[in-house]
Structures are given as C-alpha cells and as structure tokens.
C-alpha cells in the first residue's frame, strides 16, 4: 500500500491513476496511523512552498514524516521534492530539511516556468529520456544528485539519499518512461 500524503495542495488524481496503472494500491491520507501502516510514502505537491509548509504544520505532520523518511521509501514529487530541502526563496520559508540545499527561482534568459519535455542527464544509463517538467523554482544542491536536465543552467531532476527520493518533474505525466522511473523510485530508487 502506498500512501499519498494529503495536505490539501495539488492535483493528485493523475498520480493516483499512474500508481494504480502500475498495479499499486493507493490511499490518500493525512492520518498518522494510516501513514504508518503504508509501505511507501509519496509527498506530492503543486503550488506555493509556504502554503505547503503551513499546511503540513497545521496538520501536525512534521513528526510522522520525520519518522517515516528513515523507515520506508519516501518520495517527494515536484513541490514535494523541493520541500525535502532546507529553505526556499518562495515565501522565504524553511522546508523539511531532510536534504542539504535550497530552492530558488529559475532565472536567466529562459521562459519561466520551465515547462515541457526535457532530457535527463545522469551517470545511470537508464535515465536518459525526455520527461515532463513544470516548475518555476529549482533546487540548488551539490549532494545526492542522481539526474539533471539542462535549462540554460542545470536543473536538479532526481535526488536520492538512502530511502528518500526526490523527483522534480512529473513522472506520472512523462509517458511510459515516466511510469518506469516512478516504479523504480518506489522500489528502492536509483542507487545500487
């Protein structure tokens, strides 16, 4: 059973669709006991960083997430990945701080949001396809990076530290390859 953490932000219909298509049982919940029962945790998210952190605090999810991140596969997607880091410029607010790094607005001579299909670059040969991105802020870190994409500068696309995986793009919207990446993330991730 996979638990998608429900903190009221973002559209989780298609994440649920993708997980069910892959054959997983899915529940969408913010109940501590339900989360503890799940085998794997997904922290989704679309929207504003500060709203997300506020909602997580209001729902008193911080202690349970803190505990779960060590004990089961814990996957942050899009804003959910950004929340794993220490701080964001968006709302100037601290994140969950599970991974070292910060989140900043995408700058430079490029269209913002970074929207569309972009190629993954990785030392893992299986991670070389085009995947679908849509985001205006990006992670700055030099640790735990599994894959990047190029958008004038590097965009951190996948990170992993132990049981924690972060995916900046939308694997549930990146075709067949995206589904494979999502499945691999749930099955322990990308490090051997």
């Amino acid at each position, binding site marked *: 059973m996979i638990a998608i953490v429900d903190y009221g932000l*973002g*559209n989780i*219909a*298609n994440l649920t*669709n*993708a997980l*069910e*298509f892959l054959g997983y049982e899915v529940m969408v919940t913010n109940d501590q006991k339900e989360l503890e029962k799940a085998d794997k945790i997904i922290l989704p998210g*679309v*929207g*504003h960083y500060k709203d997300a952190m506020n909602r997580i605090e209001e729902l008193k999810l911080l202690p349970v997430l803190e505990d779960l991140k060590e004990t089961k596969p814990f996957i942050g997607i899009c804003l959910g990945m950004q929340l794993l880091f220490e701080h964001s410029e968006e709302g100037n607010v601290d994140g969950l701080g599970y991974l070292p790094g910060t989140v900043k607005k995408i700058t430079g001579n490029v*269209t*913002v*949001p*970074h*929207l*569309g*299909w*972009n*190629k993954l670059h990785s030392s893992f040969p299986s991670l070389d396809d*085009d995947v*679908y*991105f*849509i*985001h*205006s802020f990006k992670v700055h870190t030099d640790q735990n990076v599994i894959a990047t994409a*190029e*958008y004038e500068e590097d965009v951190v696309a996948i990170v992993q530290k132990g049981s924690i995986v972060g995916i900046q793009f*939308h694997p*549930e*919207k*990146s*075709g*067949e390859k*995206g*589904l494979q990446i999502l499945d691999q993330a749930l099955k322990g991730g990308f490090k051997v």
Partner: protein
Amino acid sequence: MIKKRIIPCLDVKDGVVVKGIQFKGLREIGKPVDLAKRYNALGADELVFLDISATETGHALMIDVIRQTAKELFIPMTIGGGIQSVEDISKLLKAGADKVSLNSAALRNPELIKEASEKFGSQCICIALDAKWDAKQQDWFCYTHGGKKATTIRALDWVKKAEALGAGELLVTSMDYDGMQQGFDHKLLKLIQETVTIPVIASGGAGNAEHFVNLFLETDVSAGLAASIFHDEDVSIQEVKDLSIQKGVPMRIV
C-alpha cells in the same frame, strides 16, 4: 535543452471529437479516448481537449471523457471550453486534467485568473486567446465565444494582464490564419512572446511540417498546435518532428 512541443487539439462536442473549420461547420471524427491514445502512440507531446458542447449535459460528458482518458494515458492533458468558475476548474482537475484553458470567462472576469492560479497554482492555468487583426485600428483584438464575439480588448494588453494575474501559459490562436493552412501568424506570435515570459502555444494556420519548423525557427514560442491536419492525416506528428530535428529544432522522440 527543452523540447518544442507538438500538440494535437481535439474539439469535443457532447463527448465526441468533431472538427472545426475556421470555427464554422462541424463534423464528427471519433471517440476522444481512442484518438488520445492514437496521438500518444504517434508522439504527441501533450493533448488539448476543447469542449465545444453548448449544454450542461454536454459539459458533464466531458468529465467522463477526461476521467477515462487520464486512466489510460500519461502525458499532459489540457481542457478548455465553457469553463466559468473556480468550481468548474476544480471538477476538471479532479477528473484528471493537468491544465485548464480559460478564454471568454477570463476576459469577462479577469479576477478568475488570479483566484484560480492562487488556488490551483499558475502551472495549471492556461489562458486561451482568439486574436484577430483589425485593419482600421491597426491592432489585434480578443474575440470570445469560439471566435464569434468581438471585444474591445487589445490582444497584447490582455496577455500582459493575464500573465500579471497569474496565468502560467498562453494558447494563442490567430483567427486570421486559422484554417488557411498557410503557416502560423509569426508577426502576432513574436509580439506576444516578447510581451510575456510565460510559455506560448501557437495555434492557427499549420498546413504542413515546414510550417511548424518555420514557426520554431522564427519565433520563440514553446509549442505548436493543430487539429484538422493531424486528424485528416495530411501531416503526421512524426513528419513534423523529423523535419524539425533535421533543421536543428529540439524535439522529443518517442
């Protein structure tokens, strides 16, 4: 490098895909979910469903179309047509839409863009714009109701305002070029892309693969959209992508 997107647009009326020629005269061409799957297999980077139903029953059928398609298809899907309120948007997103495109309702009530982007995030709010050149006033103006009603709002003013209110993307249709199959309206699209920093989807005028290549070589728009030429198989998405790559335009290959 980010790829330029090729987007087939499916006009849906009462749950069935139809084809519009210069916004007039409709004929049926198939079941949305079947066409969506076909386009996915053929390499579409994204799909746009435009609901042109005139009735509540028709719009309700669209929800089923989205739900069914989203269970089988894992590429981005934008829904437009007849969206009036935050509640409408919420229903469509819950059914599985990734983005919604707002047109007439946003022009009538620009605050809807702000409300919707604050509630759901800018990334899922696309503003669709039907623009037509006015020779007398020497400018482009916005049209509503599927291109039937003229407004006094200038296209370039509107896109600036829409971006400021929180739009995440623009879908720009040139009514002058739509259905003519002579190429995209580069002049309009260039001006619009220079006015905003959000991505622009170009629509109206594609007749062959070269038209897409020229669009991407001559303007900075992010995507090209077409309907009839893909539905009639006059041009294949593969053909567009092959020629684009040959000419140095980055494309996603499936």
